[in-house]
């Protein structure tokens, strides 16, 4: 447990020392959401209808931006070799990376989402559901993204490949995430959508660290 805390602390420290990655992701999220009103026109009804989907898609794309660095950095400078040979299981090493990604990238995205929703004039009841759905859905993004990042180690232009690999797998998160917000606006119960999102996060947290660790081992051979 101490070793896991050390690994998590290191990831967080690295993310804070080099804040460009997380900041880029949040800036991308904000800009992408702001661009939509310019593209589709300022009709309040139309914007309100597409707001949930727009925010979710923008958040998914933004989260992809900062996934590659924690994995590729350790691969390129030899840290993964030593991490693979440390007493801490490699699946916990990558789990620390995924958790750090969620804390440093996804939490800021979740925090920014209600402000952007305001900009898109999301309907009254949707804000709380949006934040809850984002908070429950983004762990799956970090977890599955961590598998993709490990699989693309050593590939040229891995960042693009990473998005191509991971985004299709995140379609269920997008569907239930946006559906939760729509349901809240329509006055329907939100609970089942949130529970599906939580279930996906739990399943991903059970499976993804192992898959990611196996991919890292493969890359090290």
């Amino acid at each position, binding site marked *: 447990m101490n*070793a896991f805390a050390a690994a998590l602390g290191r990831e967080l420290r690295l993310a804070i020392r080099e804040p460009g990655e997380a900041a880029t992701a949040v800036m991308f999220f904000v800009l992408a959401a702001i661009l939509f009103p310019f593209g589709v026109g300022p009709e309040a009804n139309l914007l309100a209808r597409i707001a949930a989907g727009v925010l979710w898609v923008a958040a998914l794309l933004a989260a992809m931006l900062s996934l590659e660095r924690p994995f590729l950095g350790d691969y390129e*400078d030899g*840290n993964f070799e030593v991490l*693979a*040979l440390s007493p801490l*299981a490699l699946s916990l090493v990558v789990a620390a990376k995924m958790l750090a990604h969620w804390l440093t990238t996804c939490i800021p995205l979740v925090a920014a989402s209600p402000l952007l929703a305001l900009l898109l004039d999301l309907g009254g009841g949707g804000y709380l559901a949006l934040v809850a759905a984002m908070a429950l859905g983004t762990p799956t993004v970090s977890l599955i993204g961590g598998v993709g990042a490990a699989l693309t180690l050593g590939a040229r232009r891995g960042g693009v490949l990473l998005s191509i690999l991971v985004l299709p797998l995140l379609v269920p998160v997008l569907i239930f995430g946006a559906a939760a917000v729509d349901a809240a606006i329509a006055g329907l119960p939100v609970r089942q959508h949130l529970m599906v999102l939580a279930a996906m996060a739990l399943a991903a947290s059970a499976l993804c660290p192992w898959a990611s660790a196996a991919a890292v081992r493969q890359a*090290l*051979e």
Partner: protein
Amino acid sequence: MNRARSDPAIAFSGRALDCMRGDRWVFSGLEFALGAGDVLVLSGPNGSGKSSLLRIMAGLLAPVSGAVQWHGADIADDRDAHAARLHYVGHLDAVKLALTVAENLRFWAALRGERDGIDRALDEFGLAPLADLPARFLSAGQRRRLAPAPPPPPARPPRFRPAGQRRRLALARIAASAAPLWLLDEPTVALDGEGVAAVHAAIRAHCAGGGCCVVSTNTALDLAGAAALDVGRYAAGPAVRP
């Protein structure tokens, strides 16, 4: 290398190891054995498989056939246990440039549940004055060696040989926590005379304490009593394979 050993206590051994990289045979039928306190020096031309052999010894790479054993138990059976008992220093230094010298060391020590060895390791490898400097400044491309001097102000890169200091930090990592088996891939590359002496001293101290050490090198090492293994002798194409 079939050393007839009088003592049965062979700690670390490999039998009939075959290694293939891509579709090329690197070596085949390689054997080695080390007892507690032994040093094995790997030599051989470039591409003969010194690094591959060390990676096989570490469990990072699986041999095509053959087995590596620690006290008779196959290392492939319990990779985590094997990892816990070894230190590996490869070609890459595994130094995080955004962290300070001490933070780099502290992390590796914490992974192994160690807290006390850090200052000693910093001293041993002449890094103590730089403990709080971000590791990226170690590669500032300065030519002159750091004399024992007061710590330089963090804003100004210290006067250092570029890669050598990072190499020292990579090596200090292994001195900061205890593990019975050291696998060092060309540890003295990019080090100056003093750094090389520090490596030799660390290896001698490690082995005096009953540890095993395998070192690959292309230069002469000052390690009395070290066994030598010429990896190039086991070079084999498919035709020569047993």
